[in-house]
């Protein structure tokens, strides 16, 4: 074929429609904002019951995760994520969804090779590199402290 691959790539880019960025940003802002507001409401209500801030945060996290798990099971969370994009992906509810979805999907392949092996197929990289980067940051903080810089 006469068209070379570079030229084809550029041409494909030209003819492929792109998702509209601005409406997506607005929707992500709305959905992400609503999820965070719900989290804040939970925290405030729990603190009003006399709990410490840390305890209230832990309870809020649990409530949001539980809500996401249930909504994933009911096939509602994918619809929220489709609408809200990163707004639904970034909060902890998105993380919970990424763990539960493979667990549900691969249940048919058994407890060990199905759920056990596949549950972190999406969240695994986040966990691995999350831990790795906190370790690296920890080392940097240690060094900076040792030299009295911070």
């Amino acid at each position, binding site marked *: *074929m006469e*068209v070379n*691959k*570079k030229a*084809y*790539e550029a*041409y*494909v880019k030209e*003819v*492929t*429609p*792109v*998702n509209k960025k601005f409406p*997506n940003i607005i929707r992500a802002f709305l959905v992400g904002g609503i999820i965070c507001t719900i989290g804040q409401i939970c925290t405030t209500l729990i603190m009003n019951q006399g709990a410490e801030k840390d305890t209230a945060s832990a309870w809020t996290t649990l409530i949001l995760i539980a809500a996401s798990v249930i909504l*994933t*099971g009911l*096939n509602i*969370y*994918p*619809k*929220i*994520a*489709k609408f809200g*994009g990163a707004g*639904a*992906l970034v909060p902890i509810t*998105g993380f919970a*969804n*990424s763990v*539960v*979805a*493979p667990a*549900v*999907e*691969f249940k*048919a392949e058994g407890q060990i090779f199905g759920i056990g092996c596949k549950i972190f197929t*999406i969240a695994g990289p986040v966990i691995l590199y999350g831990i790795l980067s906190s370790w690296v940051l920890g080392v940097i903080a240690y060094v900076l402290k040792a030299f009295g810089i911070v």
Partner: protein
Amino acid sequence: MQVGKASIKFEEPPVIESMASIVGKKEGQGPLGKLFDVVEQDDMFGADTWEQAESALQKQTADLAIEKGDVRKKDIRYLFAGDLLGQLIATSFGTVDLEIPLFGLFGACSTMGEALNLGAMTVAAGYADKVLAMASSHFATAEKQFRFPLGYGSQRPSSASWTVTGCGAVILTKNRKEGIAAITGITTGRMVDMGIRDSMNMGAAMAPAAFHTIQQNFDDFNVDENYYDKIITGDLGKVGRTILLDFMKNKGHDLETIHTDCGIEIFDPDSQDTHAGGSGCGCAASTLCSYILPKIKDGTWKRVLFVPTGALLSTVSFNEGETIPAIAHGVVIEHIGN
């Protein structure tokens, strides 16, 4: 008779004696909804897992094609069938009960074209009086294997396609004057790799393959677009169609009015949120057996070039940064009689 570089013209064209199409609920709600033989409301097809569901879909469709053709199972000498799953499990489990000698085929979404190519060759050569050609795909099994678990929330780009839950089957027969349509020729595709790496834009990966096969068909048979009433690709979708038409135009062929694509026909992107269109082996196969063949049978179209397209990627090749090679197989299907 061999013609040109990659085509065969059949002196005694195999006849499509029977056809069957079974699809899922979403396909049933699409523009072709009323044309399918069966629209199954249960996406699990009464099975426990998605893979079993696709196997059940194949079995039901094969049984229906056999029943509609009033053919005895034992008279079908070979089965040419395939699907999208690793090691063809939908086909191997779905066709056990048929007890017909099987050639399991993988051509990604072009599988129906491959099955028709091989089936027609086998029948025309006299190695079988009847063969059954079939291909299936299931949205849930394909998503699970190639993309994300169904419950995972994500946004699909506008160039992405939607895997059809569906299956199409035809029975090809030798020495018949009557039937649904005749396969008068084939043009077998070769691998075409234009360096596309975006698995969410398979139309762009497959369009050059479709272009190559159509061009090869024109060259081999010494014809042009005027020879056909319709040229119908498998699952290029909207992006792929744009590219194909551009490529053809550069060669001096205007396919604007005679080209359509099964992936574009099977869904309504606005109301069904299917983005670029339908895809999967079942897309071309079920559209052939519900929409295309009846139009050829009633003479609306006298001669159609059917070109199922396949993107031959795997999750391994994709993760290893490979490009997406593609293939397209051409089948010349003609109206029988005047």
